[in-house]
């Protein structure tokens, strides 16, 4: 039987119409089965003369190889198609429900930011009691009973005159000085209480951030460098800071660190009461009486301390206009957004 390349064209057309593997098997039988067209032609080669073999036989061999290749290709394609069908059947769609995220309070976020700055510099973090005794809140900080400096803080008493709610985190300083042997570097974030009427700009509960360093050698230059570093970390390298002399009984010399008003860039506005500067707290070299009351040799050891009010920083950073929001029902979070803390 004479055979030519037309058979390949015919096979290609037939293969194109095959969708299921059973049809492919039937087609295989037709061409390559025992009595298949190509298989039969292959068997006939044996009976051909040498001349026929070299021409017709070679052609049949080529057709046979191509036929096999076409079937293999089609089989692969069919298998692939059936897999897709299966996967399609098992496919799932993405839903629309959005994951709600939890949030940390802005005060916590701010304290963490400050803690990181100081822990990177080797400071420890401490806290102390909120119900405090007069001795640790005042006397050990060089403020004896009936000292006019007590007017700086209206105290909430639990049992006047001795038991009170701490008015400042300097009380933690007094505990740290009494408990640990220098040298040490400590920061103490915490709640403090003052007997003040609650309104939009004042609260009787707010947050302080205290720092204490006791070493054999420290100076105002070290204190200024530390506070400058802190402010720049938080507010960026453009922030302008000034240090002025300010009396606090627990330090000598005393320092008032001020930051140039971020609202008016120092021109004077309602926020900074026209001064161009915002008071950030108090600082100074720890008073020798404070060290000696804690049993620390004030001839050998020197220290610096600073106390910063946190609430106004937080209000400025988070655009909160009413201080009551920080500790009350008006503080909310967007369900599906969180703060970028990197």
């Amino acid at each position: 039987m004479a055979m030519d390349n037309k058979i390949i064209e015919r096979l290609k057309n037939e293969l194109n119409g095959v969708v299921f593997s059973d049809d492919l098997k039937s087609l295989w039988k037709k061409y390559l089965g025992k009595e298949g067209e190509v298989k039969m032609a292959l068997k006939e080669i044996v009976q051909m003369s040498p001349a026929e073999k070299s021409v017709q036989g070679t052609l049949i061999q080529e057709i046979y190889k191509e036929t096999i290749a076409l079937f293999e290709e089609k089989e692969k394609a069919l298998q692939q198609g059936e897999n897709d069908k299966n996967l399609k059947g098992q496919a799932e769609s993405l839903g629309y429900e959005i994951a709600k995220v939890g949030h940390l309070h802005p005060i916590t976020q701010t304290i963490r930011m400050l803690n990181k700055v100081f822990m990177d510099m080797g400071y420890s973090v401490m806290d102390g009691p909120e119900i405090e005794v007069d001795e640790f809140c005042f006397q050990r900080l060089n403020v004896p009973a009936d000292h006019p400096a007590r007017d700086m803080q209206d105290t909430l008493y639990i049992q006047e005159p001795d038991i009170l709610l701490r008015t400042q985190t300097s009380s933690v300083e007094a505990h740290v000085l009494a408990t640990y042997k220098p040298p040490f570097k400590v920061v103490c974030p915490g709640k403090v209480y003052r007997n003040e009427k609650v309104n939009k700009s004042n609260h009787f509960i707010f947050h302080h951030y205290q720092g204490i360093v006791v070493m054999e050698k420290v100076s105002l230059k070290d204190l200024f460098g530390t506070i400058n570093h802190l402010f720049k970390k938080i507010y960026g390298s453009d922030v302008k800071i000034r240090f002025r002399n300010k009396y606090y009984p627990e330090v000598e010399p005393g320092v008032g660190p001020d930051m140039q008003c971020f609202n008016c860039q120092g021109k004077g506005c309602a926020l900074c009461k026209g001064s161009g500067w915002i008071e950030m707290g108090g600082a100074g070299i720890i008073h020798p009486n404070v060290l000696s009351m804690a049993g620390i040799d004030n001839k050998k050891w020197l220290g610096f301390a600073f106390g910063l009010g946190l609430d106004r920083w937080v209000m400025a950073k988070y655009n909160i206009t009413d201080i009551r929001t920080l500790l009350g029902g008006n503080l909310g979070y967007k369900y599906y957004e969180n703060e970028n803390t990197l």
Partner: protein
Amino acid sequence: MKILYSQIKELAPKLTASPREVGEALTLTGLMMDGFAEIEYNNKKDYLISLEVRQNRADCLSVIGVAREVAAFYGLAVKYPQVDDLNFGKEALAIKVNAPDVIKRINAVSIDAVENKESPAWLKQYLACYEMNSINLLVDLSNFVMIVTGYPSHLMDKDKIGEVISWEINKDFGEIITLDGTNIKLNKDELIIRDNKSVIALAGMIGAQYGSIEMNSQSIVVEMAIYDRVIIRKNSRSLRITTEASSRLEKDLDPNGVDYAMGFLLSLIRKYGGGKIASQMFNYYPKKIASKTILFNPKMPSIYAGVEISRKEVIKILKNLRFAIIEDKEMLKVTVPSGRTDIFLAQDLVEEVVRLYGYNNIPVDVLPVLTMTEDITPKHFYLIEKIKDILSALSYDEVLSWPLTKKGYNAVMNYKEMGEVSVQNSVNEDSSELRQSMATGLLAQFAEYQKKNLEYINIFEIGKVFGKLGKNYLEYDTLGILLYDVDKAIDKLRIAVETLLRELGISEICYKNAISKPAIANPYSCWDIFVAQENLGIIYKARQGNVYFAELNIANLAKGLNNAPTNPTIEITQKIVTLDANVVLATNESIDDYIKNVRKKIGKNNIFSLIIKDVYKLANDKIRYTIRVSYKELSDQKAKEIHFDSFGLTK
């Protein structure tokens, strides 16, 4: 303290700095400028500079004090207001000092034939700068001298009071009508000035109407006194009276300054009101205060500042501040000038030098290299931080609430055996009790969120709860969690609590019907949370609504952590074998105790996990529990053997 720029110029005539420069210089050196206004005074343009005077600088509650500061900063001389040579009479004033413990000094004198009248325009205008109304010449001059020198004085109409004036602690008078007509009830422990009939003044605070100066007063007694500041402060606080006089006399005014201030006042009265000083100067000054001398190492300012300040500069600054100096080899003997009652120690002198040297001359951009120190951060700090992170990852929001709560809230939310702690003097009457449970704040926050239509209310707070046991005040770091759901959801909260505890490393958690239940809780849905023998806290459903609350004591949690296994990592070389067992217990039997016992029998090394898979209530007060145990590193046969033995099952 307010001060006119023109008056500073008058006292420091060589001053060339502008008003704003003066304000800024004062700010840097300790008196912060908190107000600056251009005004008209004496028909000329002038500037009123407002300064914050801190509690240590009684001397700067005066024009002279501030002018001295300005002069010291710019290295100028001060020209003091003139005091005339005064001729005193021979009459001896009848004054008794019956409270010597609280009186440091009294100067008093009488003046006859004085002409009281309306004040001159300059004086009225001057007092108006200080928001003081003009009363009459004599009273206005007294106020003027107080502003200029810082020393309050008190004038009495000699013709209206008895012959004998005494200073004493009040025991006789129940009230006083003050100069401004206010009737004040007295506690009968105040320092007063009196005669034989009535109170003439609350000493150091305010005069009485009785004996007060009026326009027709002709014979007067002028007194200027310095008291122990403590009694003035106490009287001022207890009677709730703060006056220009009390705010100065409750600080440490130097008694030595009375001589100049009294002389200045008498000179002005004579100049503007005429009259004749009829009496001798009564001068009670039993313990004259001598000038203090401090031995000072001039290297100290450099050590404290961290920058080099030369000996020459130190001496120059101290001299500008009126300190007298005798150089003694390496050291300085420094004598403190009058008025500076805030200087006691070498460190005080350091501050004087450094503040005038200028804090702005100390570099700020050098990050200190401080000695390495041991980390003394307590473990519970890290624990609290981790709890916050885990809860926020579980989609809980952190809130902060008032630790002081309304009366009655603790009664329904507390479940601990401890008394309530109240503050005695809160100006916020509805927040006088310290919270005994975190529920007080979380429930208030929940109510606010509901009002505002917030849908998801999963919140937590870590703070202190307070109480009292006997005489001891207690405070505990505590975690409170509140969950709200439209459906029943106590199990959601339980899972959150357990996830938190397991994330922290605590695994053996169990619940027992709570022994003490807060009144706000549904008593049938309220459990104590235990880890081993440690009671960590409580979990409950509120009586109303699908509001669920859990509270954990952080210190107890830390104790639980100390006993917790530290490493859940295992090698798994064989397949896990999982087997169930049904156990029937009476309702009053504890499944936790049963499981504890079974765990022991199985042996912890054989358990991969052990959970209650199902609970089914049977009749006759019985409950059937299906317990699923997954065994590790055991063959099927061995696992079955242990399982059957441990649960007492028949093969």
